[in-house]
């Protein structure tokens, strides 16, 4: 497969046969860096509103069309140990902030690229890492001074929309206004009074057909299912939620019913019928209008449910059952018992509807108490829907961050340029070898305006020099405008390109940490994989052969 790498005499022979062993600056560090660079290059083209999409076909043959870096790297199955560190860093970002995953990888890649040239000039990797960390400290110091906008009232839909726009723009360019409004509406409407916002309370329901602009928000939940019985609409309904199947109880232990006399045989089924009827009747008398079951609704039960004009909905996922219990304020019951008034939930309207040609059951709660809202996404293809869903996801996460910290910094690469400018200045005041590394850190930050320009099809160098000039004049929020023709610059704040402060804060941190970790590695030892080399699968056809 590859060149034979000469092993250090002695050490290699101590290891089990098949183990790989690399050490030294040339072999380990440079190699790691070039692998990471290559990896960062892959996701660079998806950065920004003009970024391209990737088609990723994962090992289960599922196709993703996306420009969400988190999805791409998750499906890519990265093998390289150093590149995996970058993946981990970006996953941390995903968990902490939920957005800006691409930023982490690109920046870590740029840092490593900068480190490579420093190593080649003879700098010690440790010095470089120290320098990077110092620069990071400085950057995090400067960052709060760049805050240009703050959302104080995160219940104000309009303000929130503004904050979400940039995050959506990089995923679904062209639809950002519509989507951010939708997300803001969905999030703000269910914001609880006291507790914090839970990402899980905004649901997404994808229904193919029509166009994206027909998407809407529903207060409550939407399920792609049909009702079980014949009743399909209930207003002001009281809801009983069961996690169990609504059916005659089956014994777990295998048993037989022993019948001794003819009379017993005759009474048997009659007894069963009246038993079920009594159970259902009791529910009706308790005031239940809608029964939500976590399992099968038995035929006999259904008959009586229909008879007493109740609505039955079956949900397959127990998470959905839990959520519906939360939405309606019901207590999910593990057994088919009559709920007490406190255990019953309430919903303004439960009905079936046809969207496209998909039948859905809608639990709608107009009142303030609704704790779950659903975004119904429409779109022509499944892949598009999946991708929009990811964008909505990012938007919701951004909202979560807004509720915690509503500070914003200018977007459109203005923040990065300003940071680069100030850090470069700071570098000159540092004695010692770190100075080189700090300077390179500043240079690495340039990768963002550069990538934006490249992805838009504009000359990156020209953009950079113009941006620097503008920032030198004191226009701190001057950013690159991708919408105009060719070279265009705009004030990011007035144009509404705002990035979350926390996103930038954590992204810088994680990226630098990842880069430093990789630089500090000087030996790689890989044990032989258990089970021997895997046989290549018998020739899957190249995707673009036609």
């Amino acid at each position, binding site marked *: 497969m590859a060149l034979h790498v000469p092993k250090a005499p002695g050490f290699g022979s101590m290891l089990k046969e098949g183990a790989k062993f690399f050490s030294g600056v040339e072999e380990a560090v440079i190699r790691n860096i070039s692998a990471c660079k290559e990896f960062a290059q892959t996701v660079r083209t998806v950065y920004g509103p003009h970024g391209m999409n990737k088609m990723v076909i994962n090992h289960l043959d599922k*196709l993703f069309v996306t420009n969400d870096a988190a999805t791409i790297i998750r499906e890519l199955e990265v093998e390289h140990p150093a590149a995996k560190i970058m993946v981990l860093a970006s996953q941390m970002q995903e968990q902490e902030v939920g957005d800006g995953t691409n930023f982490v990888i690109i920046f870590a890649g740029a840092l490593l690229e900068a480190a490579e040239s420093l190593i080649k000039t003879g700098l010690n990797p440790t010095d470089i890492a120290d320098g990077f960390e110092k620069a990071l400290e400085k950057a995090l110091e400067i960052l709060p001074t760049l805050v240009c906008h703050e959302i104080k009232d995160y219940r104000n839909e309009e303000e929130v929309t503004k904050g979400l726009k940039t995050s959506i723009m990089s995923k679904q360019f062209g639809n950002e206004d519509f989507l951010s409004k939708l997300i803001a509406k969905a999030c703000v409407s269910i914001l609880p009074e006291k507790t914090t916002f839970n990402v899980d309370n905004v649901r997404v329901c994808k229904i193919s057909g029509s166009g994206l602009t027909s998407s809407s928000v529903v207060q409550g939940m939407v399920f792609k299912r049909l009702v079980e019985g014949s009743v399909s609409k209930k207003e002001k309904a009281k809801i009983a939620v069961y996690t169990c199947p609504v059916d005659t109880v089956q014994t777990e232990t295998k048993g037989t019913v022993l019948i001794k006399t003819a009379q017993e045989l005759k009474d048997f089924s009659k007894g069963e019928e009246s038993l079920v009827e009594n159970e259902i009747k009791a529910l009706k008398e308790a005031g239940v209008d809608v029964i939500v079951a976590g399992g099968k609704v038995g035929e006999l039960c259904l008959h009586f449910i229909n008879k007493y004009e109740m609505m039955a909905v079956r949900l397959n996922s127990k998470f959905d059952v839990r959520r519906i219990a939360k939405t309606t304020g019901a207590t999910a019951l593990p057994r088919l018992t009559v709920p007490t008034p406190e255990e019953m939930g309430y919903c303004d309207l439960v009905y079936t509807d046809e969207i496209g040609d998909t039948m859905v059951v809608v639990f709608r709660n107009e009142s303030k108490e609704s704790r779950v809202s659903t975004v119904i996404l429409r779109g022509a293809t499944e892949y598009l829907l999946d991708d929009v869903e990811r964008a909505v996801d990012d938007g919701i996460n951004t909202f979560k961050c807004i509720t915690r910290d509503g500070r914003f910094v200018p977007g459109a690469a203005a923040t990065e340029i300003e940071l680069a400018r100030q850090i470069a200045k700071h570098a000159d005041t540092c004695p010692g070898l770190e100075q080189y590394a700090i300077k390179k850190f500043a240079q690495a930050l340039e990768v963002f305006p550069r990538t934006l320009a490249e992805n838009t099809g504009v000359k990156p160098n020209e953009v950079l020099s113009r941006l620097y000039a503008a920032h030198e004049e004191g226009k701190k929020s001057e950013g690159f405008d991708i919408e105009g023709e060719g070279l265009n610059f705009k004030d990011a704040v007035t144009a509404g390109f705002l990035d979350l402060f926390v996103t930038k804060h954590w992204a810088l941190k994680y990226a630098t940490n990842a880069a430093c970790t990789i630089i500090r590695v000087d030996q790689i030892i890989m044990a032989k994989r258990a089970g021997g080399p895997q046989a290549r699968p018998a020739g899957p056809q190249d995707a673009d052969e036609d």
Partner: protein
Amino acid sequence: MQHQIILLKEGTESSQGKSQLISNINACQAIADCVRTTLGPRGSDKLIVNNNGNATISNDGATIMKMLDVVHPAARTLVDIAKSQDAEVGDGTTSVVLLAGELLRQVKPYIEEGVHSQVTIKAYRKATNLCIEKINEIAVTIGKTNEAEYRASLEKCAATAMSSKLIHGQKDFFKKMVVDAVLMLDTLLPLDMIGIKKVPGGGLEDTLLVQGVAFKKTFSYAGFEMQPKSYDNPKIALLNIELELKAERDNAEVRVSNVAEYQKIVDAEWGILYDKLDKIHQSGAKIVLSKLPIGDVATQYFSDRDMFCAGRVPEEDLKRTIKACGGSVLTTVGDLKDSTMGTCERFEEKQIGSDRFNFFTGCPHAKTCTVVLRGGAEQFMDETERSLHDAIMIVRRAMKNDAIVAGGGAIEMELSKYLRDVSRTIAGKEQLLIGYAKALEVIPRQLCDNAGFDSTNILNKLRQKHAQGHKWYGVDIMNEDIADNFHECVWEPSLVKINALTAASEAACLILSVDETVKNPKSGGGDMGGMPAGRGRGRPM
């Protein structure tokens, strides 16, 4: 430089860059070429043999795309939009694929020259919005006030939908039937309340529309022949009970100690069955329908008492019977009352072709109807069914959204002209919407090509007419010429066109926005990393 440690898993395929984009476009065009010839009244049909050896003859874009089993990742997008169009509107599936293919074809030279694909995407999105605005502006609303006029306009929509299908020869016959069928439904217009039954034999004109329910005679036991086959105003009991001697419960066990007790048990079993039958009889029901089998004992019991029964009735038929006749499906015989039983004016069993059919007509609720389709070959009837489905969907859409536009390429030409006008006012790269304008012309062009006309000639004539402001001029298939299609009554609901344009441009933009494909090696099971995106959110399955 070769890596000692590989970056991605072994066996991962990856392709990137402009060539990748071009190759995706080529794949999509190949798909579009497949269905190209089926467009329009003179379009040809396709015969597809699937891996089971079953042959399907179809002219319906969505059906063909589904049967093709496309594996190319980019081309699968086109299959998706065809399906989505089918779901949303039910017709226009060929046009949507064709349009998407053409949109991509127009952009290909620009991509090759190095225009950034995001610029084209932006232009296309803008063009789509312009088109939709324009359609809404010029669409004509059908008046609902005048009953006869409303009906006539619905019929015209149905006729246009059918004119491109196999049954276009009989479209006058069918358009009435389709509109009748849809008008019989209740406000939600549920599609499954129109049953389509296929009976081989006879001619297409023998197809009949039943105002009520009709289904094929079910399997019956001895004694069935003695039952009467027609009733007036019968009561109908709808059951979900097995009327047969059977174990009451699977895991019940009977232990008897003496012979006398044994006889009693046997009697009791019979007793249970007769008890049920007696109850049904006492309720006054004349017709007994059950989802589960009705055995010979029950069959003979009923025929002795001048009653009719049918077991193993398919569930959807039973549901439609409820809609038509009222009543509800019962799981026990204890509740048989007048309120839970249905009724209809007339029930009869009739012979159609080689099959016997049960007819329920004159139903009090009549929210449902059944089309009994006749015809020669099986494939032919399948295709007729699909065509009727399309026509029914179109009429439903026309009723829900009452705006219509002229078909036959007229609306496409008008949009094309409008976009050309707009593009002249734009200075920048977004002038690319002229590509969209050119792509729209593919519909009239293909209509001509399929009919064997000189498309260039006809298109020139059309452009001239539209430039003069005659906005409804389109291709006249009958006379190899152009005509005012609004007058010629070639009408389509505007929703069909709007949805087609949105879907096509969304698909085109999606394909254009891809610059890299990475294919991971297949793994055996769903182990790690196989979790779909979005952390399990938003998948209400």
